[in-house]
């Protein structure tokens, strides 16, 4: 076929012949106009072959000339699989063909066509089994057949954006019916969003050159401009999810590359129109064989003459209209074959430059263009995304949606056929119904929502569907001619493949689809589903209705990962002291969402400084819950395994929490600040979970208890001052509290003014085993207090220490960490804190499991020292039985202790190995086995705890 630009401007064309654009196609310079698509510009320049087919590498040309055209996937710069039938031409575009080797014109893999009969669908399941060792080689070859474009791994994630919307009515598809629906809904006071997949509104009117159509489109556009309807073009409703939650991708956003809109529509009107269906016959995928829609789009939108001499196979009015357009465009009509009269096209022959149509009866007609109008596919996707299946209507020769939910309404071609006026009237009626039902939903939502304006009056009744239904024009059932041809153009699956698969037993549409991969390609069944079903029905000798179709799955049209990801929010939390950390050479570590100081260059030195002088650590992420009320003690008794009833004011106590299955959940200290006022601390990672856990107990199991729980984790900046000189340092900045050991003993809490900041809580506790003061400072003054301590302690050698230093020191002290030294099955008694599990309390979380566990031999957490003090077994090193591979435990924590100058560990071991002095074999990650010994105490250092009591 020979294509070219028509000399005279078409009344409906969208190109600006005054605005020339230059771009490159496979390296060569081409020209086009503003308003062209990539494909229309190339067609105007006479290009006929745009791609090679997946399996046989057959030359492929324009088929539908729109977004769904399976032959028009091209690479544009770093953007693969671009729809050349849809993507607007831009100056300087670098466009190249995909799936060609070495080139579009000469493709060596086209030789596959010759052996095609051996490469029947699913052939790879039947071969390459032996010799098995060769399969990887075969696989590499198969992989080279992967279709599609190329990924440039340096492609940046450009600016993508998202927004939420809560419109009353969303209309998907801006054809005449969709526009009328939007206008009518808007006129009824609904907030309406009209979403059009193409670059402009109008649907099929856009490429209809008849005066009535041109006038109607102008009228509809004017009405839209005058309305409050929000219109999005080059945008697609990609999916309808639960409760009318819609995904809408806007490719035309001024700022973002793409914007994903998440809309909670009160009602959805689905009006995408119909998609023209290819006809199956030998050579139906030859360049020069196009749909009637493609012919009309090429001529009327872009002024492209699709050929010189055409055969038109038409079975409907649109085919007739295409013939008229071709004639007007000066294309010689060699023959019009009327499918309604039972005539058929049975094959084409000739080179890509000349299709020779053979019609039923065997007559051959010379031509360079075969235009086919064989029927329609109804893209009922948005109507059926809840998993229900469309229903086939033989007289109309297409599927219709099964009854969708009441807040989803169809109009336009999905609802039926009719004159333009009938379609517009149905659209308007649908819009009104959508608005009425949206009003009922809006009323209900507003009435149920606490913050909403009080809504007056009765809820509007659920409007009945009194639309005058559209008719269904009779249409001949044209699926396959008397020859076999291509069904799925993007997967290279023919009717012969499908019928063979059905004969082999893959005779349900799902099995056939899985076996042949028909409908699995980029067009996702838009063009090929019905022909696929028809082929299976033919093979089974059953009706299309009996075979049925597959479930439509989202997305309606493919959308980029960039659009789905959007900007990607990743919240991070920092303490008030973060600016100081950053100014002082901190090495941070991510703990959950927290950015925390890991160390400031030399963790071992930080440890030595704490042990000999004094150090400060920022422990703000430590979970803190403010507990108030007369029943707090009861609550603590329920949450912790130990007893809390007798905790005096001013004292703090350590507690361990277990879940209902007895597994260690969290631990921490809780202090009593007043008669009915406590402050609970949790692990940093457990803070959120423990809070929900507490609320759950109070709201569901103990609603009668009078306790208020308030999370105050970041209301306070938490600073732990640790080291022999801690008291000296703290005393220099603290007023109103006697810090002497007699007045303020270990495990006590005071309220103090620190560095002029009142209302600070001061605890005498510490994870490090040193004399420690943990100061909780109102967060707005946290940095101030930290700096005051740093200044005041200059002569004492005060310095910061980070998580790593703290981890080393807690390991020296043998304190376990929930989630590191314990795991998802570690029961309370395994921690060695059995004495803290008070089974004589009448109830507490996990009590039954713990009661049963106490008798049982359980794995135990123990302190372990390798016999060679210089060997630090990696955490997770396994403890094994001698030279065997039998696992008896594992190292859960290990470090070199700067204080002891030797390696130290915590580990979990089988009960029989838990006694102090037991010799263990540790399997290092290097494979070497080394000896180690279980210690008498968890604490490697200062087991009696004199230092922290000091």
């Amino acid at each position: 076929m020979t294509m070219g630009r028509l000399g005279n401007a078409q009344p409906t064309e969208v190109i600006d012949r005054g605005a020339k654009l230059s771009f490159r196609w496979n390296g060569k310079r081409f020209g086009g106009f503003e308003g062209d698509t990539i494909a229309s510009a190339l067609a105007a320049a006479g290009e006929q072959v745009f791609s090679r087919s997946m399996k046989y590498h057959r030359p492929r040309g324009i088929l539908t000339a729109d977004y769904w055209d399976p032959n028009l996937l091209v690479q544009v710069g770093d953007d693969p699989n671009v729809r050349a039938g849809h993507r607007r031409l831009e100056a300087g575009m670098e466009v190249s063909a995909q799936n060609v080797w070495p080139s579009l014109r000469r493709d060596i893999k086209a030789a596959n066509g010759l052996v095609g009969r051996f490469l029947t669908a699913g052939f790879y399941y039947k071969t390459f089994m032996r010799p098995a060792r060769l399969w990887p080689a075969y696989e590499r070859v198969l992989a080279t057949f992967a279709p599609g474009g190329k990924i440039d791994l340096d492609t940046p994630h450009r600016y993508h954006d998202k927004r939420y919307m809560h419109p009353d009515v969303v209309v998907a598809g801006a054809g005449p019916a969709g526009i009328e629906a939007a206008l009518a809904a808007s006129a009824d006071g609904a907030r309406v969003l009209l979403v059009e997949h193409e670059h402009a509104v109008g649907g099929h009117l856009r490429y209809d050159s008849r005066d009535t159509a041109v006038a109607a489109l102008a009228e509809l556009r004017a009405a839209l401009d005058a309305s409050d309807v929000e219109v999005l073009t080059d945008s697609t409703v990609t999916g309808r999810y639960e409760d009318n939650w819609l995904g809408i991708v806007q490719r035309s956003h001024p700022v973002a590359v793409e914007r994903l809109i998440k809309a909670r529509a009160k009602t959805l009107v689905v009006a995408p129109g119909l998609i023209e269906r290819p006809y199956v016959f030998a050579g139906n995928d030859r360049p020069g064989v196009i749909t009637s829609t493609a012919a009309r789009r090429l001529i009327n939108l872009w002024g492209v003459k699709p050929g010189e001499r055409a055969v038109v196979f038409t079975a409907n009015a649109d085919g007739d209209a295409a013939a008229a357009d071709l004639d007007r465009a000066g294309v010689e009509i060699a023959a019009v074959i009327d499918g309604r009269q039972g005539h058929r096209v049975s094959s084409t022959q000739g080179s890509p430059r000349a299709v020779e149509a053979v019609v039923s009866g065997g007559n051959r007609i010379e031509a360079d263009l075969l235009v086919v109008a064989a029927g329609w596919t109804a893209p009922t996707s948005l109507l059926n995304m809840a998993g229900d299946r469309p229903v086939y209507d033989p007289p109309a020769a297409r599927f219709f949606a099964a009854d969708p939910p009441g807040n989803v309404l169809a109009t336009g071609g999905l609802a039926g056929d009719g004159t333009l006026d009938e379609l517009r009237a149905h659209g308007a009626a649908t819009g009104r119904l959508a608005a009425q039902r949206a009003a009922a939903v809006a009323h209900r939502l507003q009435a149920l929502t606490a913050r909403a304006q009080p809504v007056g009056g009765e809820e509007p009744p659920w409007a009945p569907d009194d639309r005058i239904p559209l008719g269904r024009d009779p249409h001949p059932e044209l699926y396959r001619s008397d020859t076999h041809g291509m069904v799925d153009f993007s997967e290279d699956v023919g009717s012969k493949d499908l019928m063979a698969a059905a004969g082999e037993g893959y005779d349900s549409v799902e099995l056939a689809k899985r076996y042949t991969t028909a409908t699995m390609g980029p067009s996702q069944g838009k063009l090929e589903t019905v022909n696929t079903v028809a082929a299976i029905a033919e093979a089974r000798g059953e009706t299309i209705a009996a075979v049925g179709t597959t479930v439509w799955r989202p997305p309606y049209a493919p959308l980029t990962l960039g659009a789905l990801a959007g900007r990607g929010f990743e919240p991070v939390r920092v303490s008030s002291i973060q600016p100081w950390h950053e100014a002082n050479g901190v090495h941070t570590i991510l703990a959950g969402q927290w950015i925390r100081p890991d160390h400031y260059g030399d963790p071992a030195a930080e440890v030595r400084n704490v042990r000999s002088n004094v150090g400060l650590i920022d422990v703000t992420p430590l979970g803190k819950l403010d507990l108030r009320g007369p029943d707090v003690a009861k609550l603590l008794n329920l949450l912790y395994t130990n007893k809390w009833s007798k905790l005096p004011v001013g004292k703090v106590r350590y507690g361990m929490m277990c879940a209902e299955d007895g597994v260690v959940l969290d631990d921490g200290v809780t202090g009593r600040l007043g008669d009915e006022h406590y402050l609970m601390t949790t692990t940093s990672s457990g803070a959120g979970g423990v809070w929900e856990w507490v609320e759950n107990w109070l709201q569901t199991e103990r609603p009668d208890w009078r306790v208020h729980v308030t999370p105050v984790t970041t209301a306070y900046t938490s600073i732990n001052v640790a080291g022999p000189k801690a008291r000296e340092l703290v005393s220099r900045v603290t007023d109103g509290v006697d810090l002497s050991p007699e007045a303020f003993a270990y495990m006590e809490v005071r309220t103090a003014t620190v560095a002029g900041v009142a209302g600070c809580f001061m605890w005498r506790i510490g994870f490090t085993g040193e004399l420690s003061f943990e100061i909780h400072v109102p967060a707005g003054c946290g940095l101030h207090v930290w700096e005051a301590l740093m200044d005041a302690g200059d002569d004492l050698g005060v310095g910061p220490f980070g998580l790593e230093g703290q981890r080393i020191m807690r390991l020296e002290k043998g304190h376990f960490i929930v989630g590191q030294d314990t795991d998802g099955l570690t029961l309370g008694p395994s921690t060695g804190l059995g004495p803290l599990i008070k089974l004589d309390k009448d109830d507490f979380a996990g009590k039954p499991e713990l009661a049963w566990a106490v008798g049982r031999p359980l794995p135990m957490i123990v302190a372990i020292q390798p016999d060679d003090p210089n060997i630090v077994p990696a955490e997770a090193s396994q403890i094994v039985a001698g030279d065997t591979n039998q696992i008896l435990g594992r190292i859960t924590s290990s470090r070199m202790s700067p204080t002891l100058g030797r390696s130290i560990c915590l580990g979990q071991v089988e009960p029989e190995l838990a006694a102090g002095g037991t010799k263990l074999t540790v399997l290092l990650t290097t494979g070497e086995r080394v000896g180690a010994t279980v210690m008498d105490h968890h604490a490697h250092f200062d087991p009696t705890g004199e230092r922290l009591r000091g």
Partner: protein
Amino acid sequence: MLLVPCPYCGPRNSVDLRYGGESQPRPDPATATPEQWRGYLYRRDNPADWLRENWYCRSGCRRWFTVERNTATNEFRHPPMPGDKRGGKA
């Protein structure tokens, strides 16, 4: 995205809540046999039908509540939103 009928806030997106699973009574720890207690811990009816279940309005009012949902259709019993789910009835 499922709309969950929070009795305090009103309908909320499911991601605003934590799913609490099947609602079931906690056995009396004093008298529960291992089988009863572990039945409470582990075993579930898991019907494809109406289910009494718990939700926590995590991003909203921070209240735990119990509702009935049909696990085959994800329809909530009280209060339903008009129009959605099967049949298109209000």
